[in-house]
């Protein structure tokens, strides 16, 4: 994956499957590769959400600091997962901390540029929106299941 061009990686990843070549090219033009050492923060709660990421390697935790309980990990993301959707939702601020748990490589996208393109080209914007709604729906389902606490011992 490391030696492949960003455009090739995007065309092969599930998250962007089916996007037109011109859209993939545009996304690739707005992207760069970044690496994070273990325990490095990719973004912090409250910061401007001016990027989103496709994880190429490693593992990332989404964390929230809870008074009296310390730092809670809400979820972890792995290779092939998209990280971040606050870039798509005003006021474009991160709601969680994202931290690399392992040596992590990711493709980082210029969110402001992609947002602007979405506004100008609604067909492109709709295709991007569909993909992020899919990710959000999957995470919402997972969060609901997590909330059910299905492994909690119960008495008959």
């Amino acid at each position, binding site marked *: 994956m490391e030696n492949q061009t960003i455009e090739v990686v995007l065309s092969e990843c599930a998250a962007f499957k089916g996007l037109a070549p011109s859209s993939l090219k545009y996304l690739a033009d707005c992207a760069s590769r970044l690496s994070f050492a273990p325990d490095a923060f990719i973004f912090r709660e409250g910061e401007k959400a001016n990027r989103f990421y496709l994880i190429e390697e490693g593992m990332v935790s989404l964390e929230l600091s809870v008074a009296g309980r310390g730092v809670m990990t809400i*979820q972890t993301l*792995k290779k092939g997962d998209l990280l971040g959707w606050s870039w798509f939702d005003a006021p474009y601020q991160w709601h969680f901390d994202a931290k690399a748990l392992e040596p992590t490589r990711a493709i980082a996208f210029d969110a402001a540029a992609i947002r602007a393109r979405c506004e100008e080209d609604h067909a492109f914007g709709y295709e991007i929106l569909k993909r992020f709604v899919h990710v959000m729906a999957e995470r919402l389902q997972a969060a609901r299941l997590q909330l059910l606490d299905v492994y909690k011992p119960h008495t008959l």
Partner: protein
Amino acid sequence: MNKAPDGISILAGHESAGDAMTPNPYRIRRVAKDTHDTFTIEIEPANGFQNPSYHPGQFNMLYVFGTGEIPISISGDPGESDRFSHTTRVAGTVTRALHNLKRGEMLGVRGPFGSHWPIEQARGKDVVLVAGGIGLAPLRPALLQLICERDRYRQIVLLYGARTPQDILYLKDLEKWKTRYGIDVYITVDRSTKDWRGHVGVVTTLLSGAPFDSSQAMAFVCGPEIMMRFTVMALLKRGMPSEKIFLSLERNMKCAVGFCGHCQYGPAFICKDGPVFSYERIAWLFSKREI
């Protein structure tokens, strides 16, 4: 179109209902604590009779004299033919009494009962085991048998979801399966703790990146029913055919041989037609509220 189950086999392995209803005396070899609320009990036949063979996925009825009888899946190594192992959680009167038994004390055992994981059908294929919580226990014998015949299978993947890091069963085994036997073991917890550096999230989130070919694989799934429902959806979405997905179901059992009707599941009984069913067979029942 899914069909209703057919083909009923009553009292397989037992000569008469009387045999199946009479507990055999067993002696406690060992009671070992697994986690803060789970334990494994190892038992052997007393009075010199031969321990019956069993298939991974089957269960026994364990009778604590003077307290009561409960069904518990067999969690031991099928290769250890002289004993049974059972892993359970301290959840009620009988499991508490079981937990309090000491080495050398006696209990009654009926079984083994029920259907089993179709391990032979998985030869030449990838095998995906998805376990939730204490659902890892009924899958452990299947995994041990797969390891024993490792060359006959392609990729073997274990996806295991636990409530918290403290609730992870068979920690040493998990490490051994991964490092010594080349099993792809992925563990996730629903609720993290400070020291946990692994995955956080429900077990279904592990399925997207797991290394198996859905068109050439079989899945064995065991855990709370709601977890199995979401796991089945995720497996189907990944392209696994419904007839290749097998689930272990649980209901309140009493007789274990299909007489009393306590564990009725539509037209089937969990005790004798299950506990292991192919998803194709029960899909039409699986999300019915009334069942």
